[in-house]
């Protein structure tokens, strides 16, 4: 059986990739994908935990995260579309209306 630490290591790696991607890229769609990556990294931890400790609770949490991620994608993509319609751009730096 694959040791649990490996899963955690993989999860951390994925999460780090997500953070780096979110911080480095300017394209909102890619930033989105980075966020999804982070969420799934978290999911991996839940599932790994479910296998070894609390199967029901861990799986439930993972399911929740998937549902929330789906909902978030629906909202987020709608936002990206709306911004694109307004600005003809999906680059985050072009949207700075909230600057004080």
């Amino acid at each position, binding site marked *: 059986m694959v040791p649990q630490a490996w899963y955690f290591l993989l999860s951390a790696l994925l999460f780090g990739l997500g*953070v780096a991607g*979110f*911080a480095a890229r*300017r394209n909102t769609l890619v*930033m989105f994908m980075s966020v999804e990556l982070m969420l799934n990294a978290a999911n991996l931890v839940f599932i790994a935990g479910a296998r070894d400790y609390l199967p029901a609770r861990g799986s439930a949490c993972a399911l929740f995260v998937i549902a929330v991620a789906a909902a978030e994608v629906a909202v987020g993509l709608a936002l990206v579309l709306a911004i694109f319609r307004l600005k003809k751009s999906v680059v*985050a*730096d072009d*949207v*700075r*209306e*909230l*600057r*004080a």
Partner: protein
Amino acid sequence: MNLVAALLLALPLAMAAVLGLFGRRLHGKLPGVLAFGMAASCFGLAVAAFLHLRGLPEHARFVEASFWRWMDLGVGDSRLALDVGVYLDPLSVTWTLFITGVGSLIFLYSIAYMEHEEGAWRYFSYLCLFLFSMLILVLGENLVLTFLGWEGVGLCSYLLIGFDYGKEIAARAGRKAFIVNRIGDVGFLIGMFWTWKLFGTLGHGEMKPLMAAAATVPPLLALGYFVGACGKSAQLPLFVWLPDAMAGPTPVSALIHAATMVTAGIYLVLRLSPLFVAADWALDVVAWVGAATALFAGLIALRQRDIKRVLAYSTVSQLGYMFLACGLGAFGAAAFHVITHAFFKALLFLGSGAVIHALHGEQDLWKMGGLKHHLPKTARAMTVGAFALAGIFPFAGFFSKDEILGVAFAQGYAGHTSRYVLWGMGVLTAALTAFYTARMMTLCFGGTSRVDPHLHPHEAPAPMAIALQVLMVLSIVGGVGLGFEALHWMPLHRWIDPVLAAAPHPAHLPAALNWGLMALAMMIAVLAWRIGAKWYGGDFAPARQAELTAPRLAKVLLGRFYVDEIYAALIVRPLRFLAELCLEFDRRVVDGLFRGAGQLSALLATGVRLAQNGVVHVYAFWMLVGAVILLTLALK
């Protein structure tokens, strides 16, 4: 009787509310007619109350009616329970009678006087409210209710003086009256607190036996009330508001500033007369202040050009007589003079109102003259009032004034030598009164006309004329009908004296001396009148020249002893300076503090604002930093 008392208070209040809320929609004479109807019904109720009381045996002539519990304060022994209710006794009923009686006539007069005025409904609403407040003042079951009415009449006085609020002078006069009265009210309040501490109650009925039993009370306690009375009844040194109050409509001057409200101070002293008697030297202060005011205001009245101002100072002077009577312990005589004064001074004011009405607002005596040919009825009525004021037999003022002077002389005769001085001041004032009254009447009605030739004076319309006629009759019979001391005919005294304190120094004159004094007073009055009439009766030019090129004393009189100026220098200006100082402090220090706090937070905000730059990545970065910090803390 409870119903009568309740109606007496409820009717004016309801009418004030109706006229105040819906009066704008009533046109023409309707507001005035409604108000007059109300006042006349109140008079009817007052008569009913009077008849009821008269039917009771003398020692039980009072009715106490409580409507509801007003407040119940305090703990343990120091408790103050007050009811809303009325206390009817000969004193309050007498006041109610002449307030509603003279009041009705003035309401009637006002119907015609205010007919062409803008906002007459407002005027009548205030007048009804005044009637209500005045009735609360005299009928209130306890001193707190009396104080409520006291403040209420002050408010109405303010509102009615400033009725023509567009005119700066009227608005100013209203404020002045209000502020000067506040000074007096402090005295009243101190007196009330002290009384409560002493007696543990403020109800008139409950205080009566307590006051009678009190051997001595602190003189300052009584003087507290007297300060209040000085404010309301325009005595030295708080009289300055009354002459200015003439900026109000003339019927208001007649009702509030001559017949009723200004006698509230006398009412208070009479109501608390046992307290004053027990208060050692307090009564002497009252007597001297009264006599000094009478003389002082009489002097000022000698040289006033405004007809209403002459009457105003004469009112101050006559109120001085009443306080002199109170101070001598002749409380019944004070009440007597209050009533006769209400008749003849209301008559004089209403007459002057008719003159002013006829001359389209002219109040300057120098621009009148010869009006007896144009206004014969008004001239006749006012002459009666003037004779009554001057104290000429057999008009009303003679009897009451003579009684006061008689008491002063009798006490001097009985050994209190200083009372001769008071008597002398009173007699001198009587001479002055006759002189300035003759001057006023002659300048107004006698001699040749100095009226603007474009004006065509006409007699007053019917309601005004009726009110004048009734008051004229009252000014003739009101004195002899109520009492003639020398003949031991004293129905008013028999009625009212049992509820008043007995004089601390009762004194009686031998009949011959009494008659002699009376003749002397009469002679002085007639002589002074003759001199005044002669002086101003002929050609006006020399008289005017004499007044204009008068020596310094006369200038001081015209300047009203510069009391207003002295107050301005001593009180108003320092207060204003203090106020400006406070304003500067407020602007610089207080505002600076707040504005500084605002600017500081704005400065901080500018710094914080830099973080809010709209770049998503920066937000994400800080979020990450935050998450790392929280995580580190959590894992520790």
